[in-house]
C-alpha cells in the first residue's frame, strides 16, 4: 500500500505517493527529481545524502520517506538564493574545496547547518561537525578553509 506524504521541500509544498520502503534519499532523487543529494554508502556513514530535516542535519539515506510527512526538508538544491550562490557555495569555488564534487552537496548542506547553529565556528568546531561527511579527494584542508571563510571572518581569527 502506498503512503501519501505531504511535506515542504526547499520551501515549496510537495505531495507524493510512495511505498513505505524507499528512503528519503530515494524519494528525493526518484520521486521528486532532486538528484543533488548523493548516495555514497546508503547506511549513514558518508554524509553525501545530507539534508536538513526540520532544522536538523540528517542522512537522508536512513530516513524512511513516509517519516517526512508534515516536515520541512532543505536539500542542496534549496541552499542558493534565487539567481545567486550562498556564501558557502561561493567560498567552496574560491577555495577549490572540491575535486570530483560528489561529496560536495553533502558538505554544503552540512556546512549550512553548522553555520545556522554556530555562525563563527572554530577549525575544531568545523572538523567535528563535518566528521560525518567523507571526502576522498581533498584531504579536507580546503573544505575546512572554505567553511571557516564562510563566516565572513578570516580563519586565523576564528581558529
Amino acid at each position, binding site marked *: 500500500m502506498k503512503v501519501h506524504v505531504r511535506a515542504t521541500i526547499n520551501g515549496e509544498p510537495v505531495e507524493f505517493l510512495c511505498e513505505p520502503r524507499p528512503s528519503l534519499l530515494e524519494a528525493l532523487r526518484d520521486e521528486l527529481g532532486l538528484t543533488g543529494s548523493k548516495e*555514497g*554508502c546508503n*547506511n549513514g556513514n558518508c554524509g553525501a545524502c545530507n539534508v536538513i530535516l526540520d532544522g536538523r542535519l540528517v542522512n537522508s539515506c536512513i530516513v524512511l520517506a513516509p517519516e517526512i510527512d508534515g516536515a520541512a526538508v532543505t536539500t542542496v538544491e534549496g541552499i542558493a538564493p534565487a539567481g545567486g550562490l550562498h556564501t558557502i557555495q561561493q567560498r567552496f569555488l574560491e577555495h577549490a574545496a572540491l*575535486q*570530483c564534487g560528489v561529496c560536495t552537496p553533502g558538505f554544503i548542506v552540512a556546512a549550512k547547518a553548522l553555520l545556522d547553529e554556530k555562525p563563527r565556528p572554530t577549525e575544531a568546531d568545523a*572538523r567535528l561537525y563535518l566528521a560525518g561527511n567523507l571526502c576522498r*579527494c581533498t584531504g*579536507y584542508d580546503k573544505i575546512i578553509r572554505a567553511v571557516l571563510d564562510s563566516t565572513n571572518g578570516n580563519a586565523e581569527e576564528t581558529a
Partner: protein
Amino acid sequence: MTTTKEQPKQYRVIGTRPIRHDGVDKVTGRAIYGADFKIAGALHGKVVRSPHAHARIKSIDPSRALELPGVKAVITSADMPRPKAKMVDLGEGPMNALHLRNNLIAEGKALYRGHAVAAVAAVDAHVAEEAARLIKVEYEPLEPAIDVRAAMEPSAPLLHDDLFTDDLGETAKKPSNVAKHVCFEKGDVEKGFGAADRIFEGEFNAVMVHQGYIEPHNATALWNADGHLTIWCSTQGAFTVREQVAEVVGLAVSRVKVVPLEIGGGFGGKIPIYLEPVAALLSRKTGRPVKMTMDRAEVFEGTGPTPGSSIRVKIGATKDGRFVVASADMAYEAGAFPGSPFVCGMLTVFAPYDIENIHIDGYDVVVNKPKTAAYRAPCATNAAMASETLIDEIAEWAGLDPLDIRTKNAAREGTRRADGLVFPRIGFEETVEAARRSEHAATRLEGPYRGRGVASGYWFNCGLKSSVTVTVNSDGTVNLVEGSTDIGGTRASLAMQLAEVIGVDAEDVRPQVVDTDSVGYNDVTGGSRVTFASGLAVIEAGKETKKKMAERAAMLWKASPDDVEVEGSTYRLRDGSKSIEFKELAGKLGKTGGPVVAQGSVNADPSVGGGFGTHMVDLEVDPETGKVTILRYTAVQDAGKAIHPAYVEGQIQGGVTQGIGWAINEEYRWSAEGRMTNASFLDYRMPTSLDLPMIDAIIVEVPNPGHPFGVRGVGEVPIVPPPAAIANAIYRAIGVRLRDLPMNPARVLRAVLTAAGTPPEDE
C-alpha cells in the same frame, strides 16, 4: 607556497587560480553524475554475487526470480559471448580477453567473494534486489588461496588450471598462481653487497586497500533495435569502456557509444568495467534501457581494490651513508585474474636514488580476492614503505639527517634507473631541499611519544593518447571539446592552457567533456596524464587556432599570412600598419571563409615527466591505546609547472590523506574463508575531517622538458611517501620499527607493550 627553481616565464593565465568551469553545477547539486542519469522506461538491474571466495558453480536456477512480478530478465555467463583466450590491450594494459569477460560474470568457478555470477533486470531497484535474492545458485566450495606468498607455492590451490607463469615470453610448463615474473638488473649486486659496510634488510607486508571514491559504480545501457549500444556511466575512460564493452559483448567499437557523466572519484578504480556490459546484455534481452548501481558493499567486494603485497628489500650502504647496492623481491596480489600493476612497484622502489647495483624481481600472483586495479601510483606506496623505512635505518646508523642522506644519494639528470632508462631533468633534490627549508623543518617537535618522520616518493607519470577540438565562437570565446573525463578539475587545467596559448582569459574558454562519438580517441584519466598529455593536445590545437586566425587576419588585410604576427591575443601586420584583437577577429570569421575549428592529437612521450615528492610528518602515539595522531604534515612536490596551483595543492593534500589512511587504518580484513569482514564505510576506516590537521603543500617547479609549460603529472606522487614517513615517525615516537601496513592501533599497541617487556598474550 610555491618555490620556483628556474626563472619563471611570465604567463597570463597559467599559475592563476580561476574558478573551475564546472564549479557552479557541482556546488548547487545540478551536475549530473552517473547515478543521476534518467531515461524513460528504464529497468533496474542487480547483480547476484558469490558468497564464497573460491567455489565451483554447479547450477543456477532463476525460476523463482522470474516468477516475481516485475522481473523481466535474468542473465548468466551463458548470455555473454565467449572471446578467445588472447591478450588484448583495451586501454588498461594487456589482459586476457577471456579473463576480462569472466570477471564480469563468473563462468564455471567463482574466484572471489563478490564475484558476479548472474544478473537480473526488473521494474525498480527494490524488485530487482528481491529477485536477485531468489536466484538459486548451487556452489561447491573450494579451498581458497588468500595469502600472496602461500599462493606462489606449488602446493597452493590453483585458481586457473590454464595459467602458466610468463617470463618475458617464456612460458612455464606447469600451471601456477604466478602469472608473470619481471626482472630488472643494473650493475652487479653480488659485487655491490660485497662492497657494502652493512646490509639492511626487511620483509614488508601490506594488505589490500580500496580507492574509496565516494560515488559507487553505475551504468545505464540501451541496446537499440538498430544494433547500436549506448552506455551512460561514470568512468575514468569513456574510450576504454567502449573498447572493453565492444570486446566482451561482441560489437564493433563503432556500434558502441559511451557517454561519460560526471564522475565521483576514481583514483584508478574506475578504469575497469563491471556493470556496463551486464547492463548492456540485460538491455538486449529486455529491449529496454537498464540502469545499474552498486551499493557500497558491492563496491568493496566486487570492484578492483589495489594489491596487497609481500616485499623483501635489501640495501647495502657504506659507512658514510652511500647506498651501493639494493635488491627487492616483490610479490603483489593480482586478485582473481592476472594483471596487477606490480611493475609500477618495481619501477619506483629505488627510483629516487642513484644506486650502482640493483636487482629486482617482481611477481604478479593470482589469489581468491577481487581482481585488483590501479590506485593512485599503484604498487608504489607498498614499495616505498619498504625502501624508505630501510633508508631511515641507514640514516640513523650512518649518523645522517634523513633529508641529508636523501640528498647524498639523490638520482639526478643522467642517473640510470633500475629498468635501464636514464633520467632526464628531474626535481628530486629540489623537493628535499624545499623540505629542508620548510617552516616545518625549522620547528622543533617536543614531548614524549612524539616523532617526526621523513620519506620520499616517485611516480613516473604517463603520456598516452589524447585528442581535442577547439572551435572559435563569434563572440571571441572558444569551445574546448575534450574526452578526458574530469575527476579533479582538468576542465580548468586544460582550458587554462588553451587560454594561455591563444591569449584569452580562462573564463573565455568553455571546456566540455563529450561522448566517444564526438571527439577523437582519448586514453583514461589516469596515470597523472591529463594536464600533461591532454594539455599537449590542447596546446597543439591552440597553435593551430592561432595559425588559422592569422590566416583570417591576413585575408582581411589582403596580406600574406606570413606577414601576420601574433602576440597574445593581438594579430598584427609586421609593418605595424594594422592590428586586430582575437575577439574582434572572431566576429569576422563568417566573412573570411567560415568557422575556425582546430584539432590537436598526441600520443605523448611518457618518459620525461616523472615526479618526486618529499614528505615530513609529526605525530603522537598514545602508548596505552596504540592510536596515532597526526599533528602536522608537510608535503613537497615537484609539479614541473603548476597550471592551477590550488588544484595541484588539492591533489597533494588528497593524496597525502589517502596515504595517511592507508598507513594507519585502512585495510581489507579477511576471514579465513576469504570474506572481507569490513565492507562498509563504517568499518573500512577512511580518514574524516577530525582525523587530520591542515596539510601544507609546497610546490616546487622544475619544468618538465617534455612540455612547453613544463607540466609534470601531480596526482599520484603524493600517496607514495606517507606510510613510510609515518612508520619513520612512529619509530622515533616509540622506538620500534613497524614493517606491515596498516600500522593500526592494535599493531602499534602490541609494539609498545612488547618493547616494554609485557607482550600481549593472544587468546
